[in-house]
């Protein structure tokens, strides 16, 4: 029990106390100040763009992630183990390096002449990079465990490939795809390092909430920054709750 007490205390001091400070101090100037900060045109526009681009990121990586997971599990080719190891690169590479890297390749000095720097597409690109592993790593183990006899049975009963994929493979993968996509979404909503260089931080166009908060802190408006942060915290909490629900649903699905 001593261990539990110490560990919980540590978690409280390191994580919970600072987060409580964000929520409590966001209303330092009263609720109207909080509301003004949250509903300012720039904050709303940044939040809307953040949520939309994160949703798009989650959707694109859900599709490509599932495809790549399938290639890594069911296909055979040389160098597959290396490719499999490289999937985790976005987790290992510092986000600022990821941002600089993408800016080098798809920015003004692009060797291929593709310059998308400081556009909304650039933000999407950065988010796709940093969230790439989530869906792949969620789907891969499920695909490995998937009972292939079910598929063979369906085929022998005259189902075509499309039907087998739609009726057997996909339904088994859906919980994993969704929870991977939810993790990607959560990560995308809060992402900062990879976006800060490539977005150009143009208000009403490429400014995301995390960069907006950073600018507020820099211009010495911590209370207003805390207000927007509280909204982001709420989004994170909702996603976490959603992932827990998905986990339970997936576990039920297994049985």
């Amino acid at each position, binding site marked *: 029990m001593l261990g539990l007490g110490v560990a919980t205390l540590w978690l409280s001091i390191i994580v919970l106390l600072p987060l409580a400070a964000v929520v409590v101090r966001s209303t330092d100037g009263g609720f109207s100040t909080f509301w003004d900060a949250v509903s300012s045109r720039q904050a709303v526009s940044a939040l809307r763009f953040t949520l939309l681009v994160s949703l798009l990121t989650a959707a694109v990586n859900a599709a490509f992630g599932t495809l790549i997971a399938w*290639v890594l599990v069911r296909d055979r080719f040389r160098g597959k183990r290396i490719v499999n*190891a490289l999937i985790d690169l976005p987790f290992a590479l510092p986000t600022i390096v990821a941002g*600089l890297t993408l800016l080098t390749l798809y920015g003004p000095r692009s060797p291929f002449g593709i310059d998308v720097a400081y556009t909304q597409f650039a933000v999407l690109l950065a988010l796709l990079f940093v969230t*790439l592993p989530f869906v792949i790593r969620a789907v891969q183990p499920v695909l490995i465990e998937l009972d292939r006899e079910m598929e063979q049975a369906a085929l022998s009963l005259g189902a075509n490939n499309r039907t087998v994929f739609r009726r057997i493979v996909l339904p088994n993968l859906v919980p994993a795809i969704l929870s991977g996509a939810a993790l990607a979404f959560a990560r995308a909503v809060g992402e900062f390092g990879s976006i800060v260089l490539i977005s150009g931080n143009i208000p009403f166009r490429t400014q995301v909430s995390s960069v907006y908060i950073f600018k507020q802190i820099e211009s010495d408006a911590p209370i207003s920054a805390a207000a927007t942060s509280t909204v982001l915290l709420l989004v994170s909490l909702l996603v976490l709750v959603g992932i827990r629900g998905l986990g339970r649903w997936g576990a039920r699905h297994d049985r």
Partner: protein
Amino acid sequence: MTVSRPWRIALRVIGLGYLAALLLVPVAVIFYRTFEHGIGAVWDSITTPAAISAFTLTLEVTAIAVPLNTIFGIVMAMQLARGRFRGKTLLNALIDLPFAISPVVIGLALVLVYGLNGWFGRSLADAGIQVIFSTPGIVLATIFVSLPFVVREVTPVLKEVGDEQEQAAATLGANAWQSFWRITLPSIRWGVAYGVVLSVARSIGEFGAVSVVSGKISGETETLTLLVEKRFSNFDLAGAYAASALLAVIALVTLLAMTMIKPRREEEEH
């Protein structure tokens, strides 16, 4: 599902093409841009006093944050895997918070507690302790962002291993400490190692939270990732690339370690 050969190859090309455009080519380009002016220039720019101080600070912060998170991670994982207490589900959910929260919000949270106008700012300042714009702030931010890794890697292994061996040891007269060192720790060591590798990578690479609390004083509170950003903003592209390449090498070493540890960790789980 038996996919015909042309379809299989088409899927392979699409999948690997996506990976190449998003991952491989960009990372190759960073190394190309770094070394296009020769290795001498690169060496010079990663051995300037500012760069060496940034590198040292990053290592120091990592050396403090990772062991603390490892101890916390093992203790917490044992409670989550073995303990029975009220609020376990809630505690389990709270541990994931650092993964879901924006690094900028984490930085701001620390400023609001430990900054000059923060909850403890005044009393800390009176005691002569500076947290924000100083190393302790960077350490706190790093601990925060890398907190869940060890817990998340070790908990499933502990559940899988079970506690029969520990109970046997206890009946044979081993105390809790002996049973932990001789039985529990050896059976979870690869899970711990995997969590430590992930924590180290995140600690070295953290940017957002650190950038809010550090104050970015060159030679004092500037970490390696902050150095990359500063050089880029100061139009020192070659310098930014050199520091990035150094971080990319660290990332590749991390990846190698992950690849080597992963199968062993999975063995522990079965």
